[in-house]
């Protein structure tokens, strides 16, 4: 079976800036692909090219068996797109928005109306159906936008950062909705800068940076690729981070990383709990005060850090705190 999405050597430049630098991508039918990368990595540009919103400078792409560049209109019948910014009309009601989209898919007036009602029900928006969207919350707008992408029951769906800007509750709600959706067999390309999100929703993940694929695999494959485990120590006092780092020298299998704000030191190790005990001894002798210590499997954060040399997004740390609250 041919892949539902295939992109080959996509290049897109904006003046000096190279947004896509020969990007290759394949997504099997009925699977969820997570496109992971920091801001400016080329995630949105990739989605815009694959959904006919942007023409690449060069390269080739096929979605749902349709050549993206040669038959854009034919492709638009077979895809749904929901963007980072909810593309809904504020002055129309939720119902009117979806009916309008249905009519523009040429479903006919009655079928558009029936489908709109169905989607409002599915996305828990029935009570707000006849209210203007300008009174909707961010999460409701996002759900309505996603509903808009599903009006024509497209076999291939593109979601560009579907939970960016949502509060933790809104995010979990959106994840449930997306999980229901892919259970029905829809092929999904999902971009995100949240590693947790890719971990939870995606069958396979491609990590991109500077418009190029730098890693590809399942979440587990990527994690084991990085190898070992992680010791995480949280200190009483961030001023002692440097001392703690010195004590850890020679212990791990790679460079340790320190996070001033969270007073956290992370050290990749392959000796399991023996390494943890040894480190605690050393820190105790050096008089470093410890408030938390533990051993864990690498997360996609670690994968990202190992691959790119920087963290996924500034927003990430903020959201971790939200999640813990």
């Amino acid at each position, binding site marked *: 079976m041919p892949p539902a999405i295939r992109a080959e050597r996509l290049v897109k430049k904006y003046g000096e800036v190279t947004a896509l630098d020969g990007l290759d991508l394949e997504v099997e039918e009925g699977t969820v692909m997570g496109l992971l990368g920091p801001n400016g990595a080329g995630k949105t540009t990739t989605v815009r090219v694959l959904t006919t919103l942007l023409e690449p400078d060069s390269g080739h792409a096929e979605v749902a068996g349709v050549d993206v560049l040669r038959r854009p209109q034919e492709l638009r019948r077979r*895809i749904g*797109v929901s963007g980072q910014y909810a*593309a*809904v*009309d504020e*002055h129309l009601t939720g119902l009117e928005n979806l009916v309008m*989209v249905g009519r*523009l898919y*040429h479903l006919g007036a009655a079928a558009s109306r029936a489908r709109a009602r169905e989607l409002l029900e599915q996305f828990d928006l029935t009570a707000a159906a006849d209210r203007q969207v300008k009174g909707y919350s961010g999460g409701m707008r996002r759900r309505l936008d996603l509903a808009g992408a599903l009006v024509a029951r497209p076999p291939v769906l593109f979601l560009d950062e579907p939970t960016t800007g949502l509060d933790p509750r809104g995010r979990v709600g959106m994840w449930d909705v997306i999980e229901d959706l892919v259970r029905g067999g829809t092929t999904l390309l999902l971009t995100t800068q949240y590693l947790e999100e890719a971990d939870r929703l995606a069958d396979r993940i491609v990590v991109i940076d500077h418009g190029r694929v730098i890693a590809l695999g399942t979440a587990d494959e990527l994690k084991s690729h990085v190898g070992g485990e992680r010791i995480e120590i949280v200190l009483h006092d961030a001023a002692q981070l440097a001392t703690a780092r010195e004590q850890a020298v020679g212990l791990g299998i790679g460079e340790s990383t320190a996070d001033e704000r969270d007073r956290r030191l992370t050290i990749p190790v392959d000796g399991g709990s023996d390494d943890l005990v040894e480190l605690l001894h050393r820190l105790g002798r050096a008089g470093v005060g410890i408030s938390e210590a533990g051993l864990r499997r690498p997360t996609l954060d670690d994968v990202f850090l190992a691959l790119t040399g920087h963290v996924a997004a500034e927003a990430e740390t903020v959201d971790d705190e939200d999640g813990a609250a």
Partner: protein
Amino acid sequence: MSAIREAVSDSWVITGRNLRKIRRVPDLLVFTILSPIMFVLLFAYVFGNAIGSQDTGVDYQEFLIAGIFAQTVVFGATFTGYSLAEDLQKGIIDRFRSLPMSPSSVVVGRTVSDIGINVISLAVMALTGLVVGWRIRSSVLEAIGGFLLLLAFSFAISWIMASVGLLVRAPEVVNNASFIVIFPLTFIANTFVSISNLPGPLATFANWNPVSSVTQAARELFGNTDPRAPAPDVWSLQHPVLYTLIWVGIILTVFVPLSIRLYQRAASR
């Protein structure tokens, strides 16, 4: 064949979406209804008394109504550019461009719904005009012709504004920039004063300004002219209907394809 039917249906859906907004956005209602009333009253009572009947041959109230009509529909056309820029900014154009709809329909729907807005403005102004003493002194058919010509002219200007809006993408900038052009365009004309009162270069500009010709045409079609004060002896004002239609034709020929192209290229971010 079905492509044409789809294009018509898509444009109609977009027109409906735009017209719903008139009822729901109060500023828009003010723009469409109150400001035309205000213009008629201000010009009729402030300018009307101050300027009096110059050598226009007819009562000034009657002289200036067609001018106010012309000015208002031209200003009304800026709304086309403003709205398209706003749609681009808010991201709804992204949704439209990802749908299998006819590529011309967003801009066609916009310009068509702005005719609707201008119809409302014209009706309100005509009623206000009747209240302050304006009369139609021609036949019903001619009067309808006058209104249709005003609408055709504003439809053409709408397409210019569509291109501006799609290029500029910032609604406020569209408004401010177009006012700088439209104010002189509607004032250096026969809208509020007789061209014979204008100094040389301005008179030449006014003679060939299509705003003058559409105003002159409307005056003639409403029967608001006086044979004792004929229009300036230039071809444009001696054949104002034809001259206006030539402008409408040229503008549409250039700006319809241009606007549709710009729309297709307008990746909104």
